[in-house]
């Protein structure tokens, strides 16, 4: 009789443990439609935005006649490398297609501006101001997109 009671007790304990495990599993379930927020990517975006802004600040300080490509080529290469890193950082994350798209468009425009500066060997103030504004706006979109992924934003 004691043996039967002990078996029954043990079965009840196992069922209770299974129920608790089941609840623990299901309570941790949530749907993921978008990549989780990534603070490192956000920091990398801010760093790239700052580098690009400083580049244009330096360029616009110089007279148009003193804006030969060779004077800025090192900065172009350094920033291009940072931007390619930002694209890769976004690309390797799953469910992150739209943020990757923003980073790719920024990198694409940067390469375009670099090529044009190299070909023309100058960069007019009018174009530089418009390009600077545009890139700043696009970095803003990248930051805002990453911010939206915060759990309780």
């Amino acid at each position, binding site marked *: 009789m004691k043996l039967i009671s002990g078996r029954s007790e043990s079965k009840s304990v196992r069922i209770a443990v299974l129920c608790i495990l089941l609840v623990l599993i299901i*309570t941790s379930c949530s749907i993921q439609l978008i990549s989780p927020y990534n603070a490192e990517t956000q920091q990398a975006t801010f760093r790239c935005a700052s580098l690009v802004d400083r580049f244009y600040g330096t360029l616009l300080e110089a007279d148009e006649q003193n804006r030969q490509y060779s004077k800025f080529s090192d900065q172009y290469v350094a920033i291009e490398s940072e931007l390619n890193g930002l694209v890769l950082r976004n690309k390797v994350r799953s469910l992150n297609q739209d943020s990757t798209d923003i980073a790719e468009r920024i990198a694409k425009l940067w390469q375009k501006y670099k090529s044009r500066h190299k070909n023309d060997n100058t960069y007019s103030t009018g174009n530089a101001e418009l390009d600077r504004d545009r890139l700043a706006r696009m970095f803003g979109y990248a930051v805002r997109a990453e911010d*939206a992924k915060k759990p309780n934003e």
Partner: protein
Amino acid sequence: MAFNTEQTEKQMMAAMQVVLAKEWPNVQSSMRKVIEEEREALAKISLAYISGSITEADVKRQLEDEREAFEAGLSMTKVVSTAAKQKAVNAALDVFWKAVSAALGR
């Protein structure tokens, strides 16, 4: 404790509505911001051309680049909108799992 399907469904809908009511203005303001910023950018290009800061060829190129910026803005609004949907669905799921937990007697 029994699982009340009807009540759970109502609570799930209510949870989704609360989250969407909070998140939807963000989606709308993101879209509005992209459009406003695009309008301002186009105005700046026009002004730069009128003032002689850029040439006609530059205007064409600037407009091509604006397309890239606008597309980037649309991608940003897609992220904001998807994140809002995710939060709403997960709020509803949270209600569901809590109801299941209660029915299991936890």
